[in-house]
Each structure stands twice: as C-alpha cells, then as structure tokens.
C-alpha cells in the first residue's frame, strides 16, 4: 500500500515537472494543511464497502490511515459520530465555467457550433473560473469535475478535468496529470444543428460518415508524421489542430467521452472505434445502456447516466430509472453524472434515487455500491482512478463529511476536503468561497 502511494507521488511529481514546462499546464498545487483525524465515523469507501465507526487520518494531502482507535495527536480532530464520510463526489459530465451563471449570450461558451468537427477547441479555454456555480457544487460535495464542450458537433473538442478549488486562472484548477478528453456526440444534436443549415450531417448515417472521414484523415496524418519522424519522408504534414487531437486519441493519450443516447447508436460507435482502433472510455447520457449492458461490459466502456431524466427529446424517450443499476448488475461500469448546474449539487441524491428504483423492482443494490457510481467509477473514467475516488490509504484526501447518511434527502455536505485541505465548511462562513461575481450581489455567502 505504501509502495503504491509512493509510486503515485513520484508519478505526480514527474507529471507536474513535465507539465510545468508545457503551455496550458496545471498550476494547481496541494495546499498545506494540518493533520486531520476524523474519529468514529461511518464510511462509504467508494470501493463498494461500508465501514462503521472507524477513524480516518489525513496527512499531507493523502489518506494516511483508516482503522479503529487510531492514535496520534493531530492538529485537527473531528468527531464523526452520527456523520458519514465519503470520497469527494466526482462529476464526469459538467459544463460549469463554460456555461456559467448568469446565462447570457456573452457567457455561453460551451458549444462551438460552427463546424461538425471542432476537435481543435479546448473547453478549458472557455472556462470562467469565477462561475458562481463552482461554489454551489462544492457545497454539494463535488471535489472533481470533468468539464466538457457541448454536443452540437460530431467532435466537440477537448474536455478537461478540474479540481473544484477557487482560482484566478483555469490552470489553477486543472487536475495535475489527468488526461484530456475528446467529446464526441451521436444522434439528434449534430444532425439537427447542421441539417437545419443544409450541411452535413443531416442524418444519423451522415453522422457516422463524418466520424469515419475524420478518423481516416487522422490515421493518414499520423502516418505522414511517423514517416517524417523516422526519416522515410522529408515532408512533415502541415500542422492541423483537429487532427492533433484525434491522433492523441489513437495514441491513447486522450480519452473519448461520447454523448450517445440510443443503444443501437452506441453499438454502431463501438464498430467505428473498432474500425479505426481507438478506445471509447465512456458513453454519456446513455439512457438506453440497459438494453446493451452486456455489450458495454464486454467492450469495457463506462456509461455516465442520469438517475431518471427521460422524454425531453425522442432519443431520451426510453429512459428508465433502473438504467444505472442494470448496467452495474451486468458488470459494466456505471456512473451517475449531472450535465446540470443544479443536478451537480445533489449527485448523492441522484445515486440514491437510482439505487431506490432498483430496490423497488427487487434488485439488490447496497448504498456502498451505489456510492461507487459517483466516486471510484467516475474517477476511473477520467483516468485518475489510481489517485482519487475512494477512501484507501495513499489516495488523495478528497473527502466529504455528511451530516447524515448521504443517501437521505435531508443530508447536507458539512465539510469538503480537497487534497486534505478544508475548502468548504457549512458550519464556518469563513470556509465558504465566494467568486468575484458573488460579491455584494448573490446570496452565496449567507445561504449555500
């Protein structure tokens, strides 16, 4: 365990050093904090287990020990009796900062709806760190988010994983070492947006032709670059920012997060990935994943889903509240996501509703297992599952103390730690961040 923790630490340092020299690198650093011991607390570990009445020690940004009667004299000691400790909540599908509040034409920066392929755009270049919604999500226990571009395009651009910390720059929020993602979109949105302009794609078959043409180009671009690098060719290809992104997917550096509702379309996307030899990390929204949960398990693709959204568009008409549990039951990776600045504040309740819908029909789902849907599975889909997402020794101390069982509608996040630092305390107004936009204007400081 210790070796694993150390190796992670080394990896983190190496990536940080490497990144520091690169443009757009993360400038986030772990804030120093006092050693913290939470005693006699109930824990949902994020690995599918529940521990009752244990102590958890946090030191230097990490979980240092989990056990009973932990000794030591930490600077901060928190009585956890009657409270619950969980990993920080992770939302794999958010647009905070890119679609901030207030929602105005001048703030809508999430969807570059100018071409069906905008793999060249990076959503981090839209993220407004002063979005007051970040603070609201923090009060809901969210420590990490993937911000994605919108779904108008076949290739929407690069997504970014952020830590939910106040910062003047997006770089100060970027999760060190987390891979970027490529947002792709199936179905109604691309064909509607471009079809209405009498441009391709206007149909679902047009969508697929668009993906295939782009991947074919990306492979040719990669081959030209490799030929140049190995001296077989004396002409390097002209740099193409779209193809740069796609090639990084082919090379496994960038993870594909694919907006896709219908089962048949997800199956088609699995074929596209097969044809061009890339990996789909997760289908997002995925309201019909329950229809092909076996295929998703076999392909090792996560589904990021809502607990119960349905019917707002035809491709969401077959959404059922057992979707998440059925995917989980099939041993496929199930994640609860929000795609909503309101929903992100209550992902614990969303997981609870999905668990309850399953229990209602007689499926057996424990709270400990349902917690995995908003923690470890989410971390895995973001490529940071070794670093965060569960309460295990050596992992980042991204933690939430809830005032009661987090799957109660009455539960509220009381304290939220990111890398061990107390970024939010419901009981202490001085530990509740305000964005610039909040100052003397919103009620954030008085009523989280």
């Amino acid at each position: 365990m210790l070796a694993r923790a150390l190796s992670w630490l080394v990896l983190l340092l190496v990536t940080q050093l490497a990144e520091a020299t690169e443009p757009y690198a993360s400038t986030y650093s772990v804030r120093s904090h006092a050693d913290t011991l939470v005693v006699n607390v109930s824990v949902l570990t994020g690995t599918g287990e529940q521990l009752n009445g244990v102590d958890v020690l946090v030191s230097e940004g990490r979980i240092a020990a989990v056990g009973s009667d932990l000794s030591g004299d930490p600077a901060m000691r928190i009585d956890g009796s009657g409270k619950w400790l969980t990993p920080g909540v992770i939302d794999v599908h958010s647009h905070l900062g890119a679609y901030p509040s207030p929602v105005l034409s001048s703030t809508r920066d999430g969807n570059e709806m100018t071409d069906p392929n905008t793999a060249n755009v990076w959503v981090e270049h839209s993220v407004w760190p002063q979005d007051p919604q970040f603070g609201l999500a923090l009060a809901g226990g969210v420590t990490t988010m993937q911000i994605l571009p919108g779904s108008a395009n076949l290739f929407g651009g690069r997504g970014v994983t952020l830590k939910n910390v106040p910062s003047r720059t997006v770089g100060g929020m970027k999760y060190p070492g987390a891979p970027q993602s490529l947002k792709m979109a199936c179905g109604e949105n691309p064909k509607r947006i471009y079809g209405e302009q009498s441009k391709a794609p206007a149909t679902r078959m047009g969508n697929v032709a668009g993906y295939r043409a782009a991947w074919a180009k990306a492979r040719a671009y990669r081959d030209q670059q490799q030929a140049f690098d190995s001296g077989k060719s004396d002409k390097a290809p002209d740099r193409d920012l779209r193809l740069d992104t796609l090639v990084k997917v082919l090379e496994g550096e960038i993870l594909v997060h694919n907006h896709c509702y219908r089962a048949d379309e997800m199956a088609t996307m699995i074929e596209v990935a097969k044809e061009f030899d890339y990996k789909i990390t997760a289908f997002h929204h995925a309201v019909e994943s329950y229809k092909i949960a076996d295929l998703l398990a076999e392909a090792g693709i996560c589904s990021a889903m809502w607990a119960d959204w349905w019917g707002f568009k035809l491709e969401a008409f077959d959404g059922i509240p057992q979707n998440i549990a059925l995917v989980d039951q099939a041993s496929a990776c199930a994640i609860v996501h929000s795609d909503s600045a309101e929903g992100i504040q209550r992902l614990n309740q969303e997981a609870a509703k999905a668990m309850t819908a399953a229990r209602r029909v007689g499926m057996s789902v424990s709270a400990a297992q349902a917690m995995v849907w908003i923690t470890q599975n989410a971390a895995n889909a973001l490529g940071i599952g070794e670093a965060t997402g569960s309460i295990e020794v050596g992992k980042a101390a991204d933690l939430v103390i809830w005032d009661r069982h987090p799957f109660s509608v009455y539960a509220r996040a009381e304290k939220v730690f990111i890398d061990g630092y107390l970024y939010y305390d419901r009981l202490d107004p001085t530990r509740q961040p305000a964005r610039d936009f909040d100052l003397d204007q919103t009620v954030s400081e008085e009523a989280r």
Partner: protein
Amino acid sequence: MNPLISIGLLLTVGSAFADVAVIGGRIFTMESPEPIERATLLIANGRVQAIGVDLDVPFEYRQIDARGKVVTPGLIESYSQFGLMEIGGEAATVDSQVVEYPLGPGFDVSFGINPSSTLFAVTRMGGVTRAVVAPQPGVDPLAGFGAIVHLGGGDIVTATRVGLFGGIGATTAEFTGGSRSALWQRLVTAFAKAGRFSANRYRPGERDYSRQDMQALKDFLRADVPLVLSINRAHDIAAAIRLAELHDLQLVIIGGKEAWKVREQLADSGVSVVVNVFNNLPSNFESLGARLDNAALLNDAGVNVLFTAGNTHNTKNLRHQAGNAVAHGMPWFDALAAMTRNAARTWGMDDVGVLSVGSVADVVVWSGDPLEVTSWAEHVLINGEPVPMRSRQTRLYERYKDLKTDDAPYGYN
C-alpha cells in the same frame, strides 16, 4: 350469451370498482400535523368513507396492507404541462405554447390535453395524483388559462380555467420590444381596458389584444380564479402584487427565485408562491438572489408555499423538492401540506388534498418517509381506484432486465 360468462363479466366489472380498505398505516390526514397510527381508511364509491383505529373492514372490500407504511393524500403538482407535451424537443408533440398565432389570454389549454400521454402512468406510480396544467408563455406575457387534471386516466380534466397564467421577465420582455417597462405597461393597460371592454365598440390596433383575448380578460376579472405569473425578480413580484390589488385579484407567483426578499409583502397580501426548490442558480440578473432556502424563508414568514417539480416528465420527483426544502429549514409537515392540502385549497379543489370523511380518495401508501429519496409509492389510488403499477418504463424494464433470456426471439417479450 352464456350466462356463466355474463356473470363473470359482471364480477370483473364489479371488482374493478371494488371498495377498498387501507389497513394499519401511519395516516397523515393533513388535517392535523400528527398522524393517526395503525389506522385504517375505508374507501367507498371513490371517496373516503371512514378513517380511524380498529375500524371493522367489510369482507367485500379489497384490502391493502399498510402496516409499517406511511399513508398520505395523493400529491398535487402546481405547475405542469401534462397532456400538452410528450417529447419536449419535438414541436409536433408540444401543445403548451402559442408560438406565432397571436393568442394571449384567450388561449385555453384544456382542449388539447391528451389523456393517453405516457407521462401519466410514469408519474402516478410516483404518488402524484393531480396536477395543474398550465400554458407556457409564448408570444405574449399573458399565456392563457390552465386546467386541473387527475392522473387516473379516462376523463381526466376536472376543472378548466382555473387561473390566468403569464410571465414577467427577461424572456417575455422580448415580446414587448425588449423592455420590462413596456411589458408592465401592456399588462396594466390591458387589465384597465378589459374592465370596460365591449365587443361591439372594440377596434383593436395591430398589436392590441383581439376581441377574443379581451373577452377572456374581462371574464377573468369577474371570475374567482387567480392570476398566475412566472416571475423571479423581487421588484417585479412587488409590482405584480400592486397590479393584483388594483383589480382585487388573487395572485400566485410561479418560480419566485427572489420571492424571499419580499416575503412580508407576499404574506400580507395573501399571495401564494409555487417554488422550485432546486432553482438556486444566479442564472440571470433577475434571479441573483436565488437560494436553496427560499421555500423555508417564505413559509416561515407565513406565505402559502406550493411546489413544482419544474419538469413535467419527472414530476414524480415533486416530493424530493419538498424533502430538499426540509433539508434547508422548512418544517416537514408544512412541506407535505404544500403538495397536498395547501395546493388543493389554492387551486380551488375543496375535496382533495386531505383524507377526511367525504373527501376524494386520492391515497398513496409509501414504503417510508414520502419525502425521502429512498422511499417509493407502493400503492396509489385515484378517485378510490388503485392504479396499476405499470407504465412504458416498467414494460421496458421487464423486457431488458435479463439480457440472457433465450426463450423467445428478441422483441416478443
């Protein structure tokens, strides 16, 4: 016809309308904050016949075991588009809004409510039994008249013209040239003119209300139903209170993100507010005061608070609005009353929203605390009839719950 078969048919018909006994539950009648423990509810002819402890249950009554369960009146959604919207993104299935044809206050949603909508079965399984069906603001700040439905199928519209709906805000202001002031002027002028409207003398200009609209406004001013306005900014809510007082109208505010700022005025004027608890985003310069404890603050000041799920497809989550209001300071019983007794009273339903002798038997038996995210509705009765726990969603679940069935080719289960 074979006499045996005809008797069988009679029995079948008879059992479908059987009287019901809900036995042994913790019953919240909503007439008092205290429940009646281990109580029995007898239902005959669609209404509550008796309620109490140790009641004799007539043998022919269908029995529902509610021991260890919570029993409440069916829940009432105070702002929805049931029967007017099947697929939000498909205009051909949306009838809640007049988009181009200039129809303002004359619009009446009740003609277009589709009782076969899939949303009804999904929602009633979640314990919601009645709903206000409202038009959405279209080309005019006055959107038209709403109706009330029950979710039990068949002849579902129980009342029409239950309120005149509209909206004041950045979105509706676009229809009056982009200014909120112009919007208010249009409304104030329309109400002033409607009082002395005469169809023969009225000569509408190009952007004036039609005769049909003016007649509807005039009728509204004489009817005893509320003006229902979607408003978020505190200053606009205060202006709406003044307009309502000028014309002696009941006022209901939908949304009211900043209503807490004028809660004393709202309480003094007897204005009701339909709150979407989750709306705490400063998503516009007219809602920078949005907060999670809006409902609690309003309720504490004596304002009549009601709830909306804010999303017709997921109206089954209405009770979680109430639960979250409680998490942020609203008393539990008040939050339940906001979806039952108080909603019924506000919308002119005298005999629903409570469980008392003679009231309509909309009843829900819950597996636990009805406000919780871990409970569910085990039995739902509408007009005294148990509704089937079946919907398109349950059919899809049954079809796909076990992907390994090889008994029949795909598509035959």
